[in-house]
């Protein structure tokens, strides 16, 4: 995460809109995956939809939520129909959340390819929960996790030096 992320401020409703789309996509993955016979290694429809989600997370992590397809759509189509945002938020937290989504969906894709039964379903379900909580309740699960890591001294300015 570059220092610039702290300075880029975005409409907080943009990432929540994106999380809403992601919620639907991931739910589709779960439903498709549950219907599939767990055939190890073969790239099933659910795998491809999860790969799409993975690609979207990668876009959001690397370029930030402002330059994300969902974010661009939000700005072009949704935002003009809304009143001005009451405040702006730094793009760092939603960007970090994209990174967490990237990791979890990536694990799901990998588990499926190496043949772990229902590995993809569990990973997609976990990512679905995080996206749903973000879209509906504004809860950034990755942020809360970051807080726990902070208190353990594993991240942040005061992290304990590696031995």
């Amino acid at each position, binding site marked *: 995460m570059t220092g610039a992320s702290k300075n880029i401020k975005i409409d907080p409703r943009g990432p929540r809109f994106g999380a809403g789309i992601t919620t639907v996509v991931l739910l589709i993955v779960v439903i498709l995956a549950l219907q599939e016979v767990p055939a190890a*290694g073969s790239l099933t429809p659910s795998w491809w939809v999860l790969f799409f989600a993975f690609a979207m997370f990668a876009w959001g992590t690397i370029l930030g939520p402002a330059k994300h397809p969902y974010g661009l759509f939000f700005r072009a189509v949704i935002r003009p129909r809304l009143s001005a945002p009451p405040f702006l938020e730094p793009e760092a937290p939603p960007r970090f959340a994209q990174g967490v989504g990237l990791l979890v969906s990536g694990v799901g894709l990998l588990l499926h390819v190496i*043949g772990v039964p229902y590995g993809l379903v569990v990973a997609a379900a976990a990512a679905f*929960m995080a996206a749903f909580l973000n879209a509906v309740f504004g*809860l950034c699960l990755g942020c809360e996790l*970051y*807080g726990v890591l902070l208190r353990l001294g594993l991240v*942040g300015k005061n992290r304990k030096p590696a031995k």
Partner: protein
Amino acid sequence: MFERVYGNWNTLVVDMVGSGMDTLTISLIVVGLLVLTTAVGVAWKAGQGAIDKRVDRGAIPQRLRQQGATITLLQISSEMCSYCAAMRRALGHIAHTTPGVSHLEIDVADEPEIIKTLGVTQTPTTLLVTTSGDIVTWIRGASPEATIRHTITEAQKRLEEQSHDWSI
């Protein structure tokens, strides 16, 4: 040889989990997932904005209090935070429109000792601090502006009553 091991593992897995799930089971799982996630969200939301009238005497040093403010709204935020920006807006607006009340925001990383001593566990955590550095109320998590205003008024009343106790 690898293919044989891999093939056997694959067959074993398919035998274990069967030829796929029926629609009812899938529906139950999906509904269960939705219910569970909603429950987590509701529980989390319910825990937000908890008001704690906990008093910590002299806990906040001069540098973290605003000069001339009866009450400093000391907001403790972190870099990755669900609602710090929203709280910043609410507290800033209140400070702007309420005489004697100021808003000061710090990052958990800036004051690790104080954070640890006080036992701050979530962000945002907002402390209502008096001119003498006493914390008189804790607001844990995000809270609506109206609730914050009510909390400040209540804290100011409490302070007034205490100052009367001391008068001769």
